[in-house]
């Protein structure tokens, strides 16, 4: 009845060999197909659930009439050489009022195996997952059914254990408690699968060994961080080398991203700024200013013409009034004075109140000039973009592809650098890793160690790369475009921040990716390496 196959596709229930034992014997046949098969006459029970996703699992229903006791004994059919073996444990007593069995899942079960599922429709069934070492056994498993709902225990009889050869073996150790009248069965299972390994020659189960071997679980993150940090410090030279590779690659990437962001910002501004509300406002301001200047200008011109004839020979000077040379002032303002300076000077000499008019006019003309410059800034920027060849033309698409290749290449070089450095680091530390494994380090701990080491380098390198790349890019833009580059910096700044985020992500991702294989190699290493004595 016991079969051994690569996987258990289905299990079968056979009526208990002896009902008096209070336990059903579940014999799982290992068959290749998906379809349940009847393994022989007298199989009253049947497979009720078969999980495709977990081909080793099956929920079985036991005929309550047949199995009228509460303990369950399973005959396990193991998948030969398979990682996991699932046991099916059922309650035996039938009752019209099935109680949901949810609490069972939450119970901390004293198991060697792990409870993996409680079937919602058949709440009395539960799937157990045994540790891998159970793989060697295709025979009986000792299942002690100990608990019960509300603390009651449903075990009226000693649990029956059936050896592989059918020999029976009593387990008197199970405590008898108050029988449970509720139809809830097993609360916890103790599957002492180590007993299986101690089977002696005659098929009987030897008593469980005095010590159960727990599983190592400790993965001290703090310690890993500490060791990784110290290792970086110890190998600072190489760390710097690796980090500088990352810095260079990411500085390149960052400068390109930042460049693109600022250029996009500038192009956008040059194209769309003249249509914006701010520019409408500037235009209104300009018109108001011009309106204000016009009467003053007319008044000055008139007075100048009148005074001009009488005072032409006196050749008075405007310089004291304006504080600078009139010719220079005209140049600075970009527009001529309302009248020739000598005439204006004569008019002011004739009528002192005109001095205020002239001063006011000069101030307004200065404002006007500033406004005009601001209004023409987009056009000037557009022209600059044209001269620098950064205008958005068809040819820039080709250049972008080229840049992309260059970036990819730089990143690849950095990646290979990291990979190489980490591989070296692993080979150098073979004995150290072996020693740690001898001291109880888990594979995951070793992996964590190397990934962390790489991560630190990645974070530092990427951060420096971003800062350097950004600084270089901004400097270059500043040199080419001056302050015009940052007319519309809000949106550009956001783009640059996004670029920096991308760079950090790429840098960290790259270093982790580069460390994955070396870390895996280190974790795979056998602790025996620690013993090796090199010449």
């Amino acid at each position, binding site marked *: 009845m016991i079969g051994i196959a690569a996987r258990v596709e289905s299990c079968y229930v056979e009526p208990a060999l002896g009902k008096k034992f209070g336990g059903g014997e579940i014999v799982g046949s290992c068959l290749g197909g998906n379809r349940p098969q009847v393994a022989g006459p007298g199989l009253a029970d049947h497979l009720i659930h078969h999980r495709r996703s977990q081909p080793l699992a099956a929920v079985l229903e036991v005929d309550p009439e047949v199995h009228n006791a509460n303990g369950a004994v399973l005959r396990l059919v193991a998948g030969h050489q398979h990682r996991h073996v699932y046991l099916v444990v059922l309650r035996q007593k039938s009752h019209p009022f099935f109680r949901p069995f949810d609490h069972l899942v939450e119970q901390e079960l004293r198991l060697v195996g792990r409870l993996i599922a409680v079937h919602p429709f058949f709440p009395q069934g539960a799937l157990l997952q045994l*540790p*891998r*070492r159970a793989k*060697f056994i295709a025979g009986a498993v000792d299942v002690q059914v100990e608990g019960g709902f509300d603390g009651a225990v449903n075990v009226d009889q000693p649990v029956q254990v059936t050896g592989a050869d059918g020999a029976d073996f009593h387990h008197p150790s199970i405590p008898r408690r108050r029988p449970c009248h509720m139809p809830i069965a097993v609360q916890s299972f103790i599957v002492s699968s*180590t007993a299986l*390994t101690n089977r002696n020659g005659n098929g009987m189960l030897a008593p469980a*060994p*005095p*010590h159960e*071997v*727990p*599983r*190592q*679980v*400790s993965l*001290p993150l*703090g*310690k890993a961080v500490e*060791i990784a940090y*110290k*290792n970086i*410090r*110890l190998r600072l030279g190489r760390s710097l080398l690796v980090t500088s590779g990352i810095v260079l690659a990411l500085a390149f990437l960052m400068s390109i991203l930042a460049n693109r962001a600022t250029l996009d910002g500038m192009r956008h501004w040059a194209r769309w700024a003249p249509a914006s509300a701010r520019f409408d406002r500037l235009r209104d301001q300009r018109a108001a200013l011009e309106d204000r200047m016009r009467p003053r200008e007319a008044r000055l011109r008139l007075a100048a013409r009148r005074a001009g004839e009488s005072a032409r020979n006196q050749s008075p000077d405007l310089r004291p009034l304006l504080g600078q040379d009139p010719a220079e002032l005209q140049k600075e303002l970009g527009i001529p004075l309302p009248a020739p300076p000598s005439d204006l000077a004569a008019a002011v000499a004739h009528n002192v109140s005109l001095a205020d008019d002239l001063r006011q006019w000069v101030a307004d003309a200065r404002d006007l000039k500033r406004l005009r410059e601001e209004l023409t800034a987009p056009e000037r920027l557009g022209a600059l973009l044209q001269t620098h060849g950064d205008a958005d033309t068809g040819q820039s698409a080709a250049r972008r592809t080229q840049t992309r290749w260059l970036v990819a290449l730089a990143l690849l070089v950095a990646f290979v650098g990291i990979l190489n450095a980490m591989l070296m680091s692993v080979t150098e530390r073979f*004995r*150290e890793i*072996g*020693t*740690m*494994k*001898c*001291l*109880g*380090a*888990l*594979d995951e*701990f070793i992996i964590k160690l190397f990934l962390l080491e790489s991560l630190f380098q990645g974070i530092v390198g990427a951060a420096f790369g971003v800062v350097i790349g950004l600084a270089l890019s901004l400097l270059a833009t500043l040199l080419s475009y001056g302050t015009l580059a940052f007319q519309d910096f809000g949106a550009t700044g956001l783009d640059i921040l996004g670029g920096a985020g991308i760079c950090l992500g790429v840098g960290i991702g790259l270093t982790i990716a580069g460390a994955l294989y070396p870390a895996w190699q280190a974790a795979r290493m*056998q*602790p*025996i390496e*620690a*013993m090796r*004595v090199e010449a």
Partner: protein
Amino acid sequence: MTRQQEIPGPAQADANSELAEYIVRAIDVKRVYRMGDEEVHALKGVTLSINRGEYISIMGPSGSGKSTLFNMIGGLDKPTEGKVYIDEVDIAQLDSYELAWMRCRKIGYIFQTFNLIPVMTALENVMLPMIFAGLGTSDAQDRAAEILKRVELGHRLMNKPSEMSGGQQQRVAIARAFANDPAIILADEPTGNLDLQTGKLIIDLLHGLNREKGVTIISATHDHKMLSVSDRIIWIRDGRVDKIQKRAELKIAEGTIEGEGGEDLR
């Protein structure tokens, strides 16, 4: 084969009733390495039992399978055939997590090359297995300092391995091996890289700890000084147990071993 069956062992008569007496049992252990197309039989069927608290030396020429057996006993390698029980647990049945637990709590390793973690101080080196065992940092610190004091390194807690002499490093390694109160100490040529005088100190220290804590010490060695403190000496030759000597038998032959017999120990 016949030889293996007459292996002496105090508890052999009632082996079935007192399984726990043995800390290590090897039953017909064979180990085959595959090198290319060739099969190398490193162990050809070794059966032996080691009692709790014993001080055992495994001796044999290089290539005799001594290291293979040693690794097997230490749970570092699995036999091709046969069974190795450490504290009555068949190590072949353990998964990697359980093995890690065993290495962490049950077995302490001492290496010929000391194998301290270079970036850590003596104290941190001793703390490491405790941290792996889940002990809190401050508790681990206290315990590690205590053990280091026991090996007379109380004044060098904060020194890195590179700042210590070989003998001091090995003493840190011993302290580290004892960190989690293991049942077995496996020492692989613990005096191999040390000078005569320092080696003697290390052996005395191990012997003292063996008596004090009742821990089983199993050491692979070439060092004759080791023999005089061993309870039993297991001689391996050509992948089999050649002979097992008790100390009492050895005492008589000690002169020979120290003197003219020295050559064939190499």
